[in-house]
């Protein structure tokens, strides 16, 4: 059952990617580290000529939990695939320094307030589901 889940169910987590050389976290993932320039090891099935030996692998670090609100908005004109009247968004900074954008689920947001980031469904359209970050009041 666990294997089937791995194969057929979407991974609902949101990850930052950690450089194995200097430890810098990146969100979204990058091809080269923004701090030390270390390369992301390419997937073997798309770049088979890359030599695996000697490469250090990047680590995925799940994002979630405590964070701080940097800015926010509520939008009233939505793109295709969203039937709500409006959507709320915020940019947050986690304790590890990673910044992320996501849905805001707070009644009276204020810049600087502490939030709790959790995973939720952001979109379901034409049979496809997408999961991402939601920010709640602490």
């Amino acid at each position, binding site marked *: 059952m666990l294997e089937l889940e791995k194969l057929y169910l979407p991974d609902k987590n*949101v990850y930052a990617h950690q450089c194995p050389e200097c430890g810098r976290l990146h*969100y*979204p993932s990058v091809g080269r580290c923004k701090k030390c320039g270390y390369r992301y090891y390419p997937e073997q099935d798309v770049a088979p000529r890359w030599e695996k030996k000697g490469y250090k692998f990047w680590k995925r670090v799940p994002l979630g939990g405590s964070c701080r609100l*940097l*800015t*926010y*908005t*509520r*939008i*009233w*004109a*939505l*793109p*295709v*695939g*969203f039937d709500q009247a409006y*959507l709320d*968004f*915020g*940019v947050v900074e986690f304790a590890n320094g990673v*910044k*992320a*954008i*996501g*849905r805001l689920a707070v009644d009276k947001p204020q*810049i600087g307030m502490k939030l709790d980031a959790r995973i939720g469904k*952001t*979109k379901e359209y034409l049979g496809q589901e*997408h999961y*991402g970050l939601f920010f709640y009041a602490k």
Partner: protein
Amino acid sequence: MRKVGVVGIGHTVFGNLRDYELIDILAYASLDAMRDAGIDGGIDQVIVGNMASGMFNHQIGIETALVSNLNLEPAMAEAVGNGPASGGSAFKVGYMAIASGLVDVVLVVGGEQMRAVTGWEATDIVASLEHPKVEYPYGLTLPAFSGMFARAYMEKYGLTERQLFILAVKNHNNAAKNPFAHIQLPVTLEAISDTPDSIIINPYIAEPMRMYHLCPVSDGAAAAILCAMDIADRFKKKPVRVAGVGSATDTYCPHNRADLLDLKAVRLAAERAYKMAGIGPKDISFAELHDPFAILELCEAEAVGLFEKGKAMKAMERGETQVDGRLPINASGGLKAKGHPVGATGMSQIHELVKQLRGEAEEGRQVKNPKYGLAVNFGGFGSNVAATILAKE
């Protein structure tokens, strides 16, 4: 490098042109530029700035279609895409083609037909500029970025919604005198801000940004004929010199910027253009800044050094950026009121710079004795920016 000049400009009206084909719109602007330059051919290279014809019009390879439409074969032809800065980037590539010595005469045209699709679809297509995993699936739109940017700026500098409407009123008044503008109706602060009914006619789109803080969705095109300065006497009009071009990039995702309010790519693109022109911000006579959202006119003016950080609004309230002010900004009406057919905008800014430097702007819109004009064309949400400085010869 060879010196380059602009010897012809063309423009269609901006607005709802969905009864036309995209290629027709591009052709009208191109033919207008050729008429202005006094030529009927002799173009070595055609460059088309366009953001998303494949999505808006289900048509790709528009550079080839345009050359054929204009009977300009066998001219070389390429398309340049850089989101909403496609026009500015196309101009830069045209400049490079001549400066390098590869060609002598280039037609650069930027255009877009966004109203070929519904408003929902247009919002969705523009949102495809965003990161496909960490931004787009959340339902984020480009106005959402402007709302978050404006919120952070207001928090830091004490700016109000009403103050930003002063820019909207200025730009609508300028556009009312611009025959190419999408919206040629002046507006008043009372109507869009100061009465209880204003929230009905001017609702929130991306809080704190309201409808009159944002540009309309437009179709249209603008074009220019560029040539090497040493052959400029072959053309009907006196050339306007390309004094400086610059571009720069910043993080693809705005949330990754160390300072969310630092428009680094705008600053660097302008610095590169200033350096090439051998001038500084104090030499600029007037500017066309990329303002699909009113907050950007303010922040770009600060980023390119025209005003100190956090001080542009006070200067704008004093009228310094009005057409008859010390430093006119967006005398064309800006994207805010002239319209923003994304791929066309950069070339429309070039059109305005040339028109002003020639002294050909309409009554009430002509800047007094301009020497240097600056255009800033903003791609993504400040992730890829083109700056151009044109000079009166």
